[in-house]
């Protein structure tokens, strides 16, 4: 497994907000099927890093290589805008913290899921509808809601719809920004379990930004701890949580209330 090339190779990514370094020289590799949690407090740069790696905001320095299906490792910022957009709609997914940003609120659930298929050239209405219904079921939504708009859905349902919309094209890599925060605790547990089942079952690689260490414990193979734009500690999830080395990680782990 170690000899396999990584799916994603991030090297020296740096982003400034004015004079402040929001992300400072971050490098890491991600392997196929691996779930990496990026943890840290608000303002630590974790969402900025996610956006840089997901080719949404170009970093001031650094490279983001992705193992494409046909052309090997390609720097995503050297791709044409069209290539990058295609990648983002097919092999990648992006789950926003606020589902409203990741959904089209005034079209039906089915159309939300079908949109990426249509972007890939699928035109057969029946097939799109069948596939959309199939994905609604996989994220444990009532397929009878296929014609309703997400505006009528609860927060948990919207988040599940957003996940279905992303996974319908069978991406190999999904970026998730605080996917469970803002939901009720009971809904959170259900969504986490769903994400865990989907990532394991589909051998999906994922980068999950979260401030919640329990989310990291449940979902991630590996963790990266950020503070003031820098990575202060990385390791297997249980290593970082059970035997934190860096003063900041120790503070973070010991600050969690255990029910």
């Amino acid at each position, binding site marked *: *497994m170690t000899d396999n090339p990584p799916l994603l190779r991030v090297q020296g990514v740096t982003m400034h907000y004015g004079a402040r370094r929001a992300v400072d020289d971050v490098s890491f590799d991600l392997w196929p099927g691996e779930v990496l949690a990026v943890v840290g407090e608000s303002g630590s740069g974790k969402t900025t890093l996610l956006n840089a790696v997901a080719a949404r905001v170009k970093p001031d320095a650094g490279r983001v290589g992705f193992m494409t299906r046909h052309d090997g490792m390609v720097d995503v910022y050297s791709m044409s805008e069209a290539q990058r957009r295609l990648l983002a709609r097919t092999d990648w997914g992006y789950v926003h913290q606020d589902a409203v940003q990741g959904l089209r609120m005034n079209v039906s659930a089915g159309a939300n899921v079908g949109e990426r298929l249509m972007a890939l050239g699928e035109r057969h209405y029946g097939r799109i509808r069948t596939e959309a219904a199939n994905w609604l079921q996989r994220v444990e939504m009532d397929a009878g809601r296929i014609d309703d708009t997400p505006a009528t859905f609860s927060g948990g349902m919207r988040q599940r719809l957003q996940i279905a919309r992303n996974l319908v094209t069978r991406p190999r890599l999904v970026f998730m920004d605080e996917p469970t925060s803002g939901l009720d605790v009971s809904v959170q547990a259900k969504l986490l*379990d769903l994400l865990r089942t989907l990532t394991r079952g589909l051998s999906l690689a994922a980068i999950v930004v979260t401030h919640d260490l329990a989310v990291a414990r449940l979902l991630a193979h590996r963790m990266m701890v950020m503070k003031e734009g820098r990575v202060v500690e990385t390791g297997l999830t249980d290593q970082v949580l059970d035997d934190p080395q860096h003063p900041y990680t*120790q503070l973070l782990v010991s600050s969690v209330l255990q029910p």
Partner: protein
Amino acid sequence: MMPGVGVKPVLRASGLSKRFVLHNQGGVELPVLEGVAFEAFPGECIALDGPSGAGKSTLLKLIYANYRASTGSVHVRHDDGVQAGAEVDMTRASAQTLLAVRRSTIGYVSQFLRTVPRVGSLDVVAEPLLAGTGADPEALRDAHRQAQDLLLRLRIPQRLWHVAPATFSGGEQQRINLARSFVRDWPVLLLDEPTASLDASNSATVVALINEVRKRGTTVIGIFHDAHIREQVATRVLDMGCFQPGPRSR
């Protein structure tokens, strides 16, 4: 039981030490283990012996690489599919290698089951058999069958098989945890007080399971507080008193 001539150890620890540094409590250092050195051979059951605080659980976690060693090495023979019997140093290996070792070479039964909400017992127990099989329905049926055998042997009532273990009693959770590890044969199996909250008949089952896997060649390294259990499973006792850190200046 002494290994025969030419039999190679499955695991060897050398110069292993663990010192915790608590940065947010004035940088206080807690030395727990020092100079741990031993070899473990196929078919052995090594009981770690020492009072509480002697670092027994810490040693298991160092072997599993859940804790990071301060010094020293833990070499484990790991069949990586390319080179049979290649050695991995658990204190230095990459995250990818550690995960691979944990999938097929080292099993670990901690004292606590970390449950996932909503995943039923049968699936929890079958999971170690399904790593890397994708969604093959044949593999899933087979894994469920083997998981059922263990749930039956460990007396988990059938009505609980599809219930998530989060709400189970301590003893039931421990049995799920044990079933999950005994569902496959590991070259190395680490057991942290496997019978701590079990009644006599379930303890006897665990003794039988340990002896069965040991006879099939598994190396068991465990903590067994109950002297009666220890006598029935251990082929050798490792005295943790030899690995206590000396007095320090701070």
